[in-house]
């Protein structure tokens, strides 16, 4: 009797471990990045908590990305209010699958402490908000990915194009709005992307 029980137990454990193997294989496939994903960029970034991350650490959520600098008095506040507008128009279930990312074009001034302070002052210090800064070359590279133009015109001032970009959870570009940004278009695209991805 005992023998039967133990043998059964063996087989159970045996098959269990087999299942584990299968699962691993599936996971491996998921990790494979598309060749046109922004997660292929190898630059290091710091978030508002001073934590070092790679862009690929953002995978798994739909990303709404804008490049700004916090000392901007002209267009950036508009961009930021548009981002907030997007956040408020997304429904609650969708918000959990989205990261709203603000990338600084002024890494010198926008230290993690500075970004943290800015996020608190603007009530953007909780999920889904992420602030990022890196070095100048990585910032340049990222701006190029967005086809965003910017130029330092004085120590505290930049000219820059106004673009909000949506990436899917694998880091592939879904859509961009430039200039007069239509928030509703972006919200719609984000919702559609979430439907596809999750």
């Amino acid at each position, binding site marked *: 009797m005992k*023998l039967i029980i133990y043998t059964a137990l063996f087989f159970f454990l045996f098959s269990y471990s087999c299942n584990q193997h299968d699962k691993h294989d599936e996971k491996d496939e998921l*990790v494979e990045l598309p*060749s046109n994903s922004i997660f292929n960029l190898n630059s290091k970034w710091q978030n508002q908590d001073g934590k070092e991350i790679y862009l690929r650490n953002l995978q798994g959520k739909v990303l709404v990305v804008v490049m700004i600098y916090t000392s901007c008095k002209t267009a950036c506040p508009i961009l930021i209010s548009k981002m907030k507008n997007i956040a408020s128009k997304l429904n609650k279930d969708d918000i959990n699958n989205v990261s709203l990312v603000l990338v600084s074009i002024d890494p010198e001034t926008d230290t993690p402490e500075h970004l943290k302070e800015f996020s608190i002052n603007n009530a953007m210090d909780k999920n889904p908000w992420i602030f990022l800064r890196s070095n100048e070359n990585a910032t340049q590279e990222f701006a*190029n990915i967005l086809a965003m133009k*910017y*130029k330092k015109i004085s120590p505290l001032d930049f000219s820059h194009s106004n673009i909000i970009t949506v990436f899917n959870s694998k880091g592939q570009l879904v859509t961009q709005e430039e200039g007069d940004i239509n928030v509703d278009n972006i919200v719609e695209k984000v919702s559609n992307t979430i439907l596809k991805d999750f």
Partner: protein
Amino acid sequence: MPTQKFTLQIKLLLQNSLLVVEKYKCRRFVIIVPICFLLFFIESCIKEENTEHKSEKTQFLNVPDSLYLIKANVKMVYIKGGNYKPFFGSNTATVNVKPFLIDERPVTNKEFLEFVKINPQWRKSKIKKIFTDNTYLRDWPSDLELPKNAKPDAPICFVSWYAANTFAKCAGKRLVTLDEWEFVAMADADTFNARNKPSYSNKIVDLYLQKERQYNSVKQTAPNYWGVYNMFDLIWEWTDDFNSVLTTGDSRTGKYDDKNLFCAGSATSATDVMNYAAFMRFGMRSSIKANYTISNLGFRCAKDTL
């Protein structure tokens, strides 16, 4: 590795079950001890697999493709810098260009071949789509073969900004900034700033109009005042911040129809409307994207002075 463990696991299972059969008649604990051992073993095996897998995953997530340094044998020229009037900007604004070193000539086919040899992820067949359009190294018959008839010391073209930027990193350098490039470009053979000479712009435009210049070898023409070769006569060049040209369409008047596109956009407008060659360059820069690869667009590197 997992299959080895797997077979080992099966062997142990069999051995232990035989053991169980043999010792069935013996006291209970004799049976239970190996079974416990076996259970523990399987359990730990599964756990091990899990952790192994996890570490593999994090490795994939966090460790970037490593880049390998390349030897840079090109002579670099010291440029002492100074104030200059940028082509775009208000009439009174000057920009201070700090001292820097610049490659005396553009990067060549041969050098780029060396770069992709030791950095396989930048080969024609391996490059990630996000870093290029579909004409990267267009005329190369294969990953490690220059085009037929291509001169090894002709400037490399059909490279994206990302490829140029990475090459520069691997050479321990960086791309030339737009201001640095334009600063050096002010020179003719005799003076460091020849912009006011009527012949200066015309000569460059003439050069720009010649076709198929990019197939010629570097350093076959006279250097400029600084000792820098081939600023105009072979190719156009990527600059580090080529994306800092914030204009759309015709910007000669400094009036923008697309004010919404750019924050503080009108702070930049042409200062020297007679410099037609510069218009061509800036027009080029404002119209390209970093993943573009073009038949006569190459690059050279620069470096900060210590």
